[in-house]
C-alpha cells in the first residue's frame, strides 16, 4: 500500500491577504487585489495595473536570517513557510531536521536582483554590484533560504517551471514523501513582482488594462502579480498520530509537455488533457468523481478557450457538471506562486466544502460554456479537487486533492 500524504498546514502571502484566514475570507467574498503598480514607474507602458502584495513586513517572519539582505521572493517564501508551519501546529524543534525538506517553484527566482544589475549596467555604474549578486540572484536561493531560516537539512530543491512551478514543486514533494525520503515537506511557490515579467507580458499584448476577467466574452488579458504559497505535507499516519488538522490528501499528479510552442498552448489542449488524465490515474480517481477544478484561468483569450476545450475533451459530458473557478480573477497571476496558492485553495475548498468564485464574469464567452462559479462563492460538497496549471515551455501540471474522510 502506497504511503498516503496529507496537507496539514497552509501559508500564503497574496495580493488579497497574508495568512490562510484573511486570504480565504477575502477570496470567498470575491475581493480583488488588483491596483495601480507601485513597485516601479509604469508611465512608459500602455498598461499600469498589477496585483502586488502590500504592507508586507518581512521582519515579522524572518527571525534567523537577515531579512534586509534577502530577495523579495525569498522573503515571501519564508513568510509563507512560517505561516504554514504555525497553521499546522508543527514545533520545528520536534522534527528530525535531516528529514525535513523544502521543494519550491518559481517563474523568475529573484528578478529584482538582476534588475538591479541591469540598472547599474545601463547607468555605467556596474561597480555598485558586488558579491551579493551571485549570493542573492540564482533561483535556488529561495528554497535554500527557507531551509536555512528553519534549519531544515533534508531534501532541498527548486523547480523553476514558470507559471506551473508551484504544482511541480508540490508534486515532487509528494514523490519524496511517498519514497520515504522525508517526514515533512514544505512545498509551494514564490515570485516577486518583476519589471521583466511585466514588460514581457505587456509586449505580448497579454496584460489587461483594468481588471482580470477569466472566461468573460470581452476579456482583455492577465494581470501580473506576486506572492507565495506553501503547504505542509506529512504522511497521513504521522499527522493522525499527532492529532493534526488534515485539510486534504494529496492524491496524485500528472505532468506533460505540449512540445508545441513556447508561449501558446496546444490548439486542442493536448498536453493539458494528458496531464489531467495522468493525475486522475495516479490518484485512482474517476473523472465523474471530480467535484471542483481550480482553473489556470489567466484571463487571456486563448488560455481560457483552450483550457475549456481540454476539460471538455477529458471529462466529456461531466465537464458541464463540474464547477470551475479562476482565482486569478481576484489575485492576478502570481506566476510561480500561482498554482501553489491555487493548491492551497483546493485544500481549503475540500476542507470547507466551499469553492471560490470567478469574479468579473458577467458576460460569458460563448466558447467558454462551463460552470465557472460566476461572481459568488458556492457551498457544495467537495470530495475531490483538481488543480490545473500551464506554463511557458508547454509545461503542464495537474494535481488532485481529496477529502480526508475518503482516506480511512
Amino acid at each position, binding site marked *: 500500500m502506497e504511503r498516503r500524504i496529507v496537507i496539514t498546514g497552509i501559508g500564503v502571502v497574496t495580493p488579497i491577504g497574508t495568512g490562510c484566514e484573511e486570504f480565504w475570507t477575502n477570496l470567498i467574498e470575491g475581493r480583488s487585489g488588483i491596483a495601480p503598480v507601485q513597485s516601479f514607474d509604469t508611465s512608459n507602458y500602455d498598461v499600469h495595473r498589477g496585483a502586488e502584495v502590500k504592507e508586507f513586513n518581512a521582519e515579522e517572519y524572518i527571525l534567523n536570517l537577515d531579512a534586509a539582505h534577502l530577495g523579495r521572493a525569498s522573503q515571501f517564501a519564508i513568510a509563507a513557510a512560517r505561516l504554514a508551519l504555525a497553521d499546522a501546529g508543527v514545533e520545528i524543534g520536534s522534527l528530525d531536521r535531516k528529514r525535513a525538506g523544502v521543494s519550491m517553484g518559481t517563474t523568475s527566482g529573484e528578478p529584482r536582483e538582476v534588475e538591479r544589475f541591469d540598472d547599474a549596467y545601463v547607468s555605467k555604474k556596474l561597480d555598485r554590484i558586488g558579491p551579493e549578486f551571485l549570493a542573492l540572484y540564482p533561483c535556488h536561493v529561495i528554497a535554500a533560504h527557507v531551509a536555512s531560516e528553519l534549519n531544515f537539512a533534508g531534501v532541498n530543491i527548486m523547480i523553476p517551471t514558470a507559471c506551473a512551478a508551484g504544482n511541480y514543486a508540490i508534486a515532487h514533494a509528494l514523490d519524496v514523501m511517498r519514497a520515504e525520503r522525508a517526514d515533512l515537506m514544505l512545498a509551494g511557490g514564490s515570485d516577486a513582482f518583476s519589471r521583466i515579467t511585466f514588460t514581457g507580458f505587456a509586449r505580448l499584448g497579454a496584460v489587461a488594462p483594468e481588471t482580470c476577467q477569466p472566461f468573460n466574452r470581452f476579456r482583455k488579458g492577465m494581470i501580473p502579480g506576486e506572492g507565495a504559497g506553501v503547504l505542509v505535507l506529512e504522511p497521513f499516519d504521522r499527522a493522525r498520530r499527532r492529532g493534526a488538522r488534515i485539510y486534504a490528501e494529496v492524491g496524485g499528479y500528472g505532468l506533460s*509537455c505540449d512540445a508545441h510552442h*513556447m508561449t501558446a498552448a496546444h490548439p486542442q489542449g493536448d498536453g493539458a488533457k494528458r496531464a489531467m488524465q495522468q493525475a486522475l490515474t495516479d490518484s485512482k480517481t474517476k473523472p465523474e468523481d471530480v467535484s471542483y477544478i481550480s482553473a489556470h484561468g489567466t484571463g487571456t483569450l486563448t488560455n481560457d478557450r483552450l483550457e475549456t476545450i481540454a476539460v471538455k475533451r477529458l471529462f466529456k459530458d461531466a465537464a458541464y457538471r463540474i464547477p470551475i473557478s479562476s482565482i486569478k480573477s481576484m489575485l492576478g497571476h502570481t506566476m510561480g506562486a500561482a498554482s501553489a496558492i491555487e493548491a492551497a485553495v483546493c485544500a481549503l475548498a475540500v476542507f470547507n466544502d466551499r469553492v471560490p468564485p470567478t469574479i468579473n464574469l458577467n458576460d460569458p464567452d460563448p466558447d467558454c460554456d462551463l460552470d465557472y462559479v460566476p461572481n459568488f462563492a458556492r457551498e457544495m460538497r467537495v470530495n475531490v479537487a483538481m488543480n490545473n496549471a500551464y506554463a511557458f*515551455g508547454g*509545461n503542464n501540471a495537474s494535481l488532485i486533492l481529496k477529502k480526508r474522510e475518503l482516506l480511512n
Partner: protein
Amino acid sequence: MIGKRVVITGMGVVSPLGDSPARLHDSLCQGLSAIKPIQLFSTVGLGCPLGGEIIDFDAAKYLGQRNLRPLDRTSRLVGSAAQLALEHSGWSAEMRAAQEVGLVLGTMFCSLHTISEFDRRALEAGPAYASPMDFSNTVINAAAGQTAIVHNLRGVNTTISTGVTSGLEAISYATDLIRTGRARALLSGGADELCFESFYGFDRAGFLCRSNDSAGDFPIPFDTRRNGLALGEGAALLVLEDAELARERGARIFGEIKGRGSSYDCSRGRNGSDAVEAIASAIRQALSDAFLLPHEIDCLSASANGSQVGDRREAEGVFTGLSGQTHRLPVTAIKSMLGETLGASGPMQAVALLETMRDRVLPGIPQLKEIEHGFPLEMARSESRETDVTHGLINSIGLDGHCCSLIITGCDN
C-alpha cells in the same frame, strides 16, 4: 529505494573539449584544457580573463538549418546535446511520436544573458522595444521547453535549479520518475552557458582563479596551489530508460544508475563541519540507495573545481562518507580541464565516468603536483591511468549548501 532499474542508453555532450563522449574522454585523458581567454564578451576590468568557452559553437551542425532564431545560446546547447543523445540511444523521431520521451534539465542560470539583455533593452530604448521572442526565453525553463519543441519531447518536462548540483539533481529526479514507473524514457542532464552576467557575479564574489599566480592560469583541484575555479559552459544529457524497455527494444546499455543521495547544509557553507557532514550525508544516502558498502566504490569523480574551501570540504566529506576507505580510491576532477560548468557539471562527470568504464582509462588532474597535506585522496594523479571501474561515485557540491551524489555502475554488472 526499490523500483524499476534505470539504465543509461545514450549520451549527448556539447563541450569545449569535444562534442561526443569519446572525444570529450580523449581530451580529458590527454590532459587538454578548455580554459582560455574568453572571446564571447569583454573581460576588461574583471580579475580573470579566462573561461571554458565553446569557441565557434554552431548549433546548425547538430540541429540542421531549421529555424534556430527563437533559440538562445543556452537553448542551442541543450537542443544540440539532446539531438546527439537521441541519436546515440536510437530514439528516432518515429519512436518519439509513438512513445512519450521526457526531459529533466538542470540549470543554474538558464538564460541569464537573455533575461538581462531583454531588461536592458527595455531600460535603454523603452519597454515598447523589448523583444517578445526574447521574453519567452527569460523563463528559467526556457531551454527545456525549446528543446521539447525541437525534438517533440511530450513526456514530463521539468527544470531543476539547485546551483552547481542542478544537473546531477536532475538525473536523480529523472531516476526516481523511472523507478516509480511515472516515465519510461527521459533525457536528463544539465546545461549552463558562459555569459558576462554570471561571469561578473562569480568574479565579484571572488570565486575565480587568478591568472597571475605562480600556479599559472588553471584551476588545480586538491593542489596546495589552487586559488579558485574557472567558469565553463556546455550541455550534457543522458538517456535514462526503464531497463525492461531498453532490453525490449534491444538498446545498447552503457551503465546503470544505482544510487542517489542529496542533502543540504543549512549553514550555507558558513559552518565547516556542517558543510562536510552534508557532503558525507549525500554519499551515505547514495550508498544505501545502491545497496553498496564504501569499499565497493572503486572510483570518485569529484566536484572539486580548484576552490580553496570547497575542495578541502569535499576531501573531508568523501573520507567521512566512505567511512575512511579512500586511500586506494582512484580520483579524478575533470573541472580542472573543463572548468566549472555549473548545471552541466554533474552530467559531464557522468558522461566522462561512463567513458572511463568503457575505455578503462581515468583522466588525471593536469598540473596536480602536491595534494594538500591532510587530504585523504592519495590516488589523485596528474596523469591519466588505466583503471577498472565497476561502481563509480559522482559528487556535485554547490557553493552554498547543496550536495548531490550519484553512483553509476558499469554495464556488465
